[in-house]
């Protein structure tokens, strides 16, 4: 008797789904990101027009003044689909959890000078509300935007902003009593330093063009706010005055901002490169909204950095303009 082991190779007849292959120019091996994105956008046979917006179909590219022949060109360079995004964020969450435990177990908050601790809370806690606004805005982009390549990462971005808001809340609870959160909200509502930023956020909540909203929130505002607060204020100011714990507890924010800036820049670059009209339109939006953002952040820079505020904000603006230039915009 002879017992033999054999391996049979069964090769698939096709490499990927037809609706994915259509967008890849042929039946090629597709990544999970491509299979999760291409062909996923509903294009026809919609439910009847919504009563709250009869001028548009349920999914309607004309909600934006940006014109693209194919909205799938707005590919995410990070190639995030649900699984890779959740796994990446889960790893980052573990790291932040360790930071919180480290700070708490060594009583590092108690070692921060009182003035520095209070300054950190006064600047960071009202930003919970700005992060909430960013969550709302990105959810709006996901709802009214056209094209899965554009809207799916926007929903991830919305949840990320919720995470930022939650980390700021935990920072407040780690460094003070729960009343500090209420004080932060009162400051957001009443303190003159915050009213410019608050008005900016509230005005963006009613923007109807999803791509303009993307530019106003994710590029113009966050592109200035994050470097100002987390690089210039937390790293270069608070950490150097005995507040290293604050830098540890907010470590997610600058890291996340740099990662998502790749996505934001890629979308703006591709959309602007498609036509002169797009380029002019997007450049105008970036120019107008970043001017407003700079004005809104001037009192915040003053609150955070005092006399160094204007110089820090100026440096942030210079880097922002360089970033926009790299993306092919004309500011």
């Amino acid at each position: 008797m002879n017992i033999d082991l054999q391996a049979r190779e069964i090769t698939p007849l096709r490499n990927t789904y037809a609706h994915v292959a259509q967008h890849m120019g042929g039946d090629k091996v597709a990544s999970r990101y491509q299979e999760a994105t291409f062909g996923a956008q509903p294009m026809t046979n919609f439910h009847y027009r919504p009563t709250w917006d009869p001028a548009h179909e349920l999914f309607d590219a004309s909600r934006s003044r940006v014109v693209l022949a194919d909205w799938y060109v707005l590919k995410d360079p990070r190639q995030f689909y649900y699984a890779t995004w959740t796994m990446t964020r889960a790893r980052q969450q573990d790291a932040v959890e360790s930071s919180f435990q480290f700070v708490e177990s060594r009583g590092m908050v108690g070692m921060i000078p009182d003035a520095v601790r209070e300054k950190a809370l006064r600047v960071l806690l009202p930003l919970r509300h700005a992060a909430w606004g960013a969550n709302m805005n990105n959810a709006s982009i996901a709802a009214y935007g056209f094209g899965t390549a554009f809207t799916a990462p926007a929903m991830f971005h919305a949840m990320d902003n919720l995470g930022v808001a939650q980390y700021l809340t935990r920072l407040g609870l780690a460094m003070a009593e729960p009343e500090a959160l209420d004080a932060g909200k009162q400051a957001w509502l009443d303190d003159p330093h915050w009213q410019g930023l608050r008005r900016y956020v509230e005005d963006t909540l009613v923007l109807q063009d999803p791509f303009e909203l993307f530019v106003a929130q994710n590029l113009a505002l966050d592109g200035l706010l994050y470097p100002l607060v987390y690089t210039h204020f937390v790293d270069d100011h608070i950490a150097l005055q005995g507040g290293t714990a604050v830098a540890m507890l907010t470590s997610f924010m600058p890291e996340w901002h740099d990662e998502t800036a790749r996505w934001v820049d890629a979308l703006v670059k591709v959309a602007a490169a498609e036509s002169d009209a797009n380029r002019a339109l997007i450049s105008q939006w970036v120019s107008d909204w970043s001017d407003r953002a700079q004005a809104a952040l001037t009192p915040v820079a003053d609150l955070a950095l005092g006399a160094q505020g204007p110089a820090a904000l100026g440096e942030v603006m210079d880097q922002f303009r360089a970033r926009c230039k790299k993306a092919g915009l004309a500011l």
Partner: protein
Amino acid sequence: MSNVFIAFQHNEESRPVIDAIVADNPGAQVVHSPGLVKIDAPNSLTIRRSTIEEQTGRPYDLQQIHINLVTLSGHIDEDDDQLTLSWRH
């Protein structure tokens, strides 16, 4: 002249690594067998972290290859950015 080879499990995680190896090593030959991808190359083969990152679009730790690595042959020269197999001492 001898071949070096490296073999990975044939799955989604190893795909960008294999694409990077093929891109960086012009003499490389890819052989498929059930569940396995073997890459043979004359003399030497280099895996570069930066090329893998171009494929994935995200930061990649070169040590991640070990999750799907089945076997290899050759002398190993390894650092954070590259792994080279060769028969040169």
